[in-house]
């Protein structure tokens, strides 16, 4: 049971399990340990919620990356298209 105690009172271990659970797998035993930890630790419970939110924001950053007003400047684009055209003409 030493290991159980380790996680129940250890926020570093608990947050590690939170991350592992979010994108991978943790064992049933670890899930129970984590629940017990949450029961006594509101800080890690908050961490869990925020970490979930961050993951969905990161996903959203990917999905919505198109409308961001990042554009290449025209000079660079023109030069690039010229290079492409030149290469095409050579072949």
């Amino acid at each position, binding site marked *: 049971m030493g290991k159980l105690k380790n996680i129940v009172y250890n926020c570093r271990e608990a947050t590690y399990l939170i991350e592992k659970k979010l994108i991978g797998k943790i064992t049933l035993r670890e899930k129970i340990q984590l629940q017990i930890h949450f029961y006594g630790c509101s800080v890690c419970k*908050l961490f869990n919620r925020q970490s979930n939110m961050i993951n969905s924001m990161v996903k959203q950053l990917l999905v919505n990356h198109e409308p961001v007003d990042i554009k290449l400047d025209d000079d660079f684009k023109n030069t690039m*298209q010229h290079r492409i055209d030149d*290469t095409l003409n050579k072949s």
Partner: protein
Amino acid sequence: MLPHQTINPHQWVKNHADYLYSYTLSRISDEEQARDLVQETFLAALERLDKFEGKSTERTWLTAILKNKIVDVYRKNSSGLKAPSVNKEVHDMQEFFWEDGHWREEHQPREFSIEHHDPFHAKEFNKVLQKCMQKLPPLWLAIFTMKHMDDAPTSAICSELKVSDSNFWVIIHRTKVNLRACLQKNWI
């Protein structure tokens, strides 16, 4: 069956350059390097025009080529002198936690000023998020991005970047603790 997709390099820059550029910038912070990658992608694509089978759209095909180039950059950045050792990374965790595993009080998570995923503020959020991500060491950013943005299998990332499975999880954990702290600090 999908209609056969066509390819027209004479319109590539006009049709795809901005898209590919912003795709790159959400994964690599260096603008100069991002521009180069877009250009290299087009040139590499030209060399293998005959490999385009028309099964995907032109854009999907170009993006796949770009993605491989980005992974190459990750691999380069995260190996060699630039990369901090994992031991150092584990050690750094002491900044956030006491030796017994409890949060240091000054680093305990607090409520964000905005907890909801509010589409109205999405742009602002994304800016802060990107800024915080760009502060991560290259190897962490590589692992984090490959996992979260592209949903690559863990084993593939580990072999691609030559990290062990256990180091992978150590870095994922460390990254999130840092990222969360950075977001809290910057979302005032």
